[in-house]
């Protein structure tokens, strides 16, 4: 795995979001505009300074609408990343590469939707329109059998993981409990001041066994944006730069969309392993150098193999790592200090990147001591991505 030249070339200089709600009462485009303007204000920049835009293929707010409405001028770089929440950190990688190569100087990454009051991903794919594309045809192996939703897809991985490593529902529940603990002290979180206990988790209703309601992230209306500039320029802007030490994508062998059940083993996340190897090679860091993590938590079970793929513990030992309290503030690897997508908001992981920036700045509401480097992951079960952010040293 090569180190490449991306390390330290670019930084996240601004973050901005709307409130996180269940019914925003305004258009998705307005949410995008508000988030973009907030991120630019945070960076001390104006819309006219922006010359690059990156978003998700899943985003409904095309670059032209965001650029025109916010008053951006000429935009020389625009790019989109696919695979739902797997795109998150990949948008920052695109932005960093654009900045490093001179394709653009100020790149805004954004994601905004009315995912709760509009089209809810959690309701599944059963009755979506059909065509004959390979992507649609892939659902032919699922929907006729009643396998429609992300929770159900993840449950098949979770059951196999439990079988191979002896994990149980409590091991998943502890992820929810720590997320909600962090959300409880975060005023921006939907579940602010509403922590849960392991008993609450055990008594929550089944969604797709072995997943209970409290294993599943919420659905959210909102927007989040990030501003990426060169490290050099970031040093002149108001906040301490969150330097991008590593940014990588990964698509594994025999990869499917959340249904890679056909690989020799399905208890790991090989595409996340690929991301991890790149992040460590680029940054020159190892798991021991990572002081905090934002782990994509659309569903609790896939947090466990992430810890293993990222090298924080051995295979099958994530349940013990979590049970030992290592994800708590004050633990070995404080994780999802904003409350994660279970506690704060489901913004396709983009709100987690913003929290990574706050951890580097030292401004998280649950700020651990001495955070030098933060590792952020994107959606699991799909082609994914990751980031290592850090401050000046």
């Amino acid at each position, binding site marked *: 795995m090569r180190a490449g030249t991306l390390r330290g070339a670019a930084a996240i200089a601004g973050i901005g979001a709307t409130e996180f709600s269940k019914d925003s009462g305004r258009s998705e485009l307005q949410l995008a505009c508000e988030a973009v303007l907030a991120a630019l204000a945070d960076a001390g920049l104006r819309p006219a300074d922006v010359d690059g835009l990156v978003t998700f293929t899943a985003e409904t707010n095309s670059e032209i609408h965001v650029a025109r409405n916010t008053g951006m001028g000429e935009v020389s770089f625009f790019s989109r990343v696919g695979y739902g929440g797997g795109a998150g950190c990949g948008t920052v990688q695109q932005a960093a590469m654009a900045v490093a190569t001179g394709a653009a100087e100020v790149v805004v990454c954004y994601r905004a939707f009315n995912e709760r009051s509009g089209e809810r991903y959690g309701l599944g794919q059963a*009755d979506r329109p059909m065509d*004959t594309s390979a992507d*649609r045809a892939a659902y032919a192996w699922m929907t*006729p059998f009643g396998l429609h939703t992300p929770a159900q897809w993840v449950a098949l991985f979770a059951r196999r993981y439990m079988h191979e490593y002896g994990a149980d529902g409590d091991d998943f529940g502890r992820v929810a409990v720590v997320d909600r603990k962090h959300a409880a002290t975060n005023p921006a979180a939907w579940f602010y001041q509403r922590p849960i206990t392991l008993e609450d988790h055990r008594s929550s*209703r089944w969604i797709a066994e072995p997943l209970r309601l409290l294993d599943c992230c919420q659905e959210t209306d909102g927007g989040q944006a990030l501003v990426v500039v060169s490290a050099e320029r970031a040093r002149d802007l108001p906040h301490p730069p969150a330097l991008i030490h590593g940014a990588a994508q990964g698509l594994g062998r*025999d990869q499917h969309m959340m249904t890679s059940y*056909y690989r020799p083993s399905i208890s790991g996340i090989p595409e996340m392993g690929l991301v991890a190897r790149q992040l460590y090679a680029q940054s020159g860091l190892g798991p021991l150098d990572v002081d905090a993590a934002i782990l994509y938590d659309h569903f609790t079970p896939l947090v466990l193999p992430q810890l293993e793929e990222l090298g924080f513990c051995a295979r099958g030992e994530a349940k013990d790592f979590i049970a030992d309290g290592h994800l708590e503030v004050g633990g070995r690897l404080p994780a999802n200090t904003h409350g994660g997508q279970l506690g704060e908001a489901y913004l396709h992981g983009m709100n987690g990147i913003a929290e990574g920036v706050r951890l580097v700045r030292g401004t998280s509401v649950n700020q651990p001591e001495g955070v030098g480097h933060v590792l952020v992951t994107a959606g699991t079960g799909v082609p994914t991505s990751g980031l290592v952010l850090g401050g000046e040293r």
Partner: protein
Amino acid sequence: MNGTSRSADGTSSTTNGASRTEDGTSSPASEAYEERLRAFVGREVTGPTPGQDPVNQPMIRHWAEAMGDRNPVYTDERAARATGRPGVVAPASMVQAWTMRGYAATVAPAARDTAPGGLAALVALLDEGGYTSVVATDSELEFRRELVPGDHIAVQETVESISPEKKTALGAGRFVTTVKTYRDQAGGLVATQRWRTLRFRPREAGRPRAERSTGGSAAQPGAEPPARRPRPAVNRDNAFWFEAAREHRLVIQRCASCGALRHPPGPCCPECSSLWWDTVESGGRGHLYSYVVNHHPRHPAFTYPLLVAVVELAEGTRLIANLDGVAPEEVRVGMPLVLDWLDADPDLSLPVFRPAATEES
């Protein structure tokens, strides 16, 4: 022995109560059926087919007499020359007659008429949809030159469009438009014909064809039919699997070059990049690799809790299928399973797996 395992009383499973079939009516409007029809659009259904005889004076005379057309340019050399023609010509509208296949071919079609993907296959597919009757609705001919004795005409036919189902006075049907291209012995274009027929389901006689469901197909008269399972998105890469399933055969795609099995199927072998493939039929035995018990959200085609499994077949590939004959709390990863079939509705048959012990007891 193809691994289809039925219970001792010979009934097939009707898992989850969702498999009942709307009584009697076939459902040609399914997406899978639409896709199969769509596959014909733009396709040549009759390759260049020479007429049995060259253009000749005796047939011209018979035709002109039968039609009562006394124009001398069809029969009288001199009269024809007087109009500036080099000699007699054939009536333009005879162009179709030169390529009619004749009595013998009608009673015993040649191989090309029944070739896969040919006109006969399209007619069979329309029959399958219940569109068993036909009426010609219009014919637009465009002529490029007059035919003269000695010309030898060939016709080629391509499907231009197949309409969605329309309600007509004759019954529900589809307009099928083809374009016939007539060429001479040198390959020169002599005429084109846009030919539209209505293939329809006769109002009275259109009751069941292709009634496939074996399990619990007798819905209560007047009862609301249950929701159908979500349709699989069938395309050129996966249609073979669903077609085999309709015949209760669980097939696995096999690379014809290196022999590697693969599922879900695709056009290209991940092991050797070969585009050549065939299938093998699974023996229908395997074990449970993983499973989920679905509770929420609920889809009206299924009853809950719903068991969905990843099954690892003895052949080594895995597939998603429902589990039947076992309660959720009795399911164990690793349990041996055998194949059965679920006729969800007339258009959709799916593999379902049961614990192997149930069959053997």
